[in-house]
């Protein structure tokens, strides 16, 4: 028995050593040729959550991309017979999966660009790899720090913090002087909004924050907080919560007798708050895209999307759409569909900006900025507030 054990250990060590030596042999290689010119088939991989807790973001983005690809190819935007091909891969809500799929895509020399993960933690985790491997990657959503860190990382979604000022301004314009903040402090974006951004903006707009309640992502019941907010009766409530929490908080706010304005976030977009029923009527939130937007590009996008998928587009679809068009414009601008060419093109287009479904898009470095719009929800649709 003892001999068998020792033999097994030795075998295991030998196997490990063998693996060790192959590891030593492993090394990264640079991207494809870079000889300029646009290839006939441009291969891109998209790594997003198609399943998992925030699947709706990935699924929406994938649809937007699909529409964009169709438009780009059928219009010959990149040249006659040039096809942009996007392979969708599911990261299933896990960092390990995202990492793994990204690594696979990056080691495939035919892949010239990647449409990156939507979750902040996944994106921040793969960003250094992207920089190391020098593969231009366009992230959507993933609004946390540590994502756009270098020349090869790009983001096609303006972080909520970047355009929340329009929401606070709207409140001020409506005569709001006092506000209560209810926010999820264990969710990075909301923590930043609730603790830093909103207080700053409130001060700038002459609004006083009378109370600020923080909860965790695991908090499900808001009876206590909503009752105390109703008691202090501020002119408005700024609600920074994830989807299921938002529905509950809205319902309980109304039950507690509070009937004034509630300002939320783009998490509520695309009907994510419809389960709250009547309690959500009149809810306002700033969003980077809405079907209520009236500039021509937004309308054209909405019509085309409706035609193709039989449903209205949500912000995630718009981000996927504009992000993919950014990629196409980049290839056209640099005239080079290699990894380096795309990177150059993306930077170039970012300097110039362009108009997409989300309006007049500008960039701060490689990070997208949009004008954004404050919409109001009436139970079935969003409408513009100005």
């Amino acid at each position: 028995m003892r001999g068998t054990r020792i033999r097994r250990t030795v075998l295991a060590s030998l196997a490990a050593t063998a693996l060790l030596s192959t590891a030593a042999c492993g090394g990264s290689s640079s991207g494809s040729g870079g000889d300029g010119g646009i290839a006939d088939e441009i291969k891109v991989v998209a790594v997003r959550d198609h399943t998992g807790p925030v699947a709706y973001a990935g699924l929406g983005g994938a649809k937007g991309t699909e529409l964009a690809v169709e438009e780009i190819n059928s219009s010959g935007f990149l040249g006659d017979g040039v096809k942009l091909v996007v392979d969708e891969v599911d990261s299933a809500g896990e960092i390990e999966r995202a990492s793994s799929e990204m690594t696979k895509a990056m080691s495939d020399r035919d892949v010239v660009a990647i449409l990156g993960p939507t979750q902040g933690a996944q994106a921040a985790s793969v960003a250094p790899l992207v920089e190391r491997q020098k593969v231009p990657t366009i992230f959507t959503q993933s609004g946390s720090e540590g994502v756009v860190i270098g020349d090869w990382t790009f983001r096609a979604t303006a972080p909520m913090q970047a355009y929340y000022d329009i929401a606070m301004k709207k409140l001020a314009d409506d005569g709001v002087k006092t506000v209560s903040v209810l926010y999820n402090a264990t969710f990075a974006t909301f923590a930043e909004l609730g603790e830093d951004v909103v207080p700053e903006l409130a001060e700038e707009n002459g609004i006083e924050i009378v109370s600020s309640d923080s909860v965790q992502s695991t908090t499900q019941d808001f009876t206590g907080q909503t009752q105390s907010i109703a008691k202090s009766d501020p002119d408005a409530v700024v609600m920074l919560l994830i989807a299921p929490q938002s529905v509950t908080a809205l319902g309980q706010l109304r039950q507690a007798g509070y009937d004034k304005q509630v300002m939320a976030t783009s998490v509520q977009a695309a009907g994510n708050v419809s389960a709250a029923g009547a309690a959500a009527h009149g809810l306002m939130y700033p969003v980077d895209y809405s079907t209520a937007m009236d500039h021509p590009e937004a309308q054209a996008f909405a019509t085309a999307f409706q035609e193709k998928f039989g449903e209205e587009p949500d912000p995630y679809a718009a981000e996927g759409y504009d992000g993919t068009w950014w990629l196409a414009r980049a290839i056209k601008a640099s005239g080079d569909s290699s990894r380096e060419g795309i990177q150059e093109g993306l930077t170039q287009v970012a300097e110039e900006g362009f108009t997409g479904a989300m309006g007049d898009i500008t960039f701060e470095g490689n990070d997208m900025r949009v004008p954004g719009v404050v919409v109001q929800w009436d139970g079935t649709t969003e409408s513009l507030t100005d």
Partner: protein
Amino acid sequence: MNDWYLSNIVLVQSTFTTLLLALSVQIPMRMGVFSFAGIGAYGIGGYVAAMCMVHREWTTVPAIVAGTLAAGIATFLLGLVVQRLTGLYMGMATIAFTLIVAVLAVNGGEWTGGASGLFGALGDITTGLIIGCAVVVVVLLQFTEMGGLGRRIDTVREDPELANAMGINVARYRRLSFLASGLVGGLAGALVTLLRSTITPDLVNFHLVVLALTVIVVGGSGSWIGALIGSLIFVWLPTWLVFIGEWEEIVYGVIVALAAIFLPSGVLGVAKNLWHRFRTRDERARLKAGGGTPAGETGDAGGRGLVPSVEGEA
């Protein structure tokens, strides 16, 4: 081969880090201590390593060492406090420890990056380093599974009163199991964090506990080999299941449930059974021809009889 390796490098690395994570729970379990503190250690190790790198600009190896040691000490202290607990009460207390670690991380302000966590802690970690660490741990564990030490540990688990009567200091073994689980868990956390360059509070959660437990039970709880088998299965399963597409989660659940029903000692148990039957095939055939029960086996169908069923092969 090299291309396959490169494109699957994350999975290869994941296999070994998951192995270490699972071992951090399996080690105390083998001593009869139902402790999940190893997951909390994973969080502590990860955060300490990231903090050293981001705030103090340490290099990779010192950061990993710091993370591992911090986790080991914290878990050892925890062990001192909870050693009187048994069974699921111990399990609950150690899960509480793990969840408290996560809350501390969220409320740690600048130090731990709060809700956003820490990022940019990119260590210089090669797959070789990960495998090397795993091999070292496994070799050490192997020595604890063999010979006298192995038997003493089995006794501590199966019959603590007997062990005490024989002069084995059961309490000391249990305390040491906490230290070991903390070190191994902390090492896993430090490695993964510096590999992924990020750590967030919601990474230290109940799902990790579930993962470690599932890996151990399906793979086989008696030995590190079982943990390795379990890690291989659960890290590579999504790749094999990829053709099933969106039904992946359901298939995963069904596989886990089936394993729990039909594989009492995990895959390792099945493998050992087959190996045993293979080794004794000549003798069994001979005895069958001649009639009578084979020597060394009782009449039991599985041939295990009075041998304790959590693997403690003598």
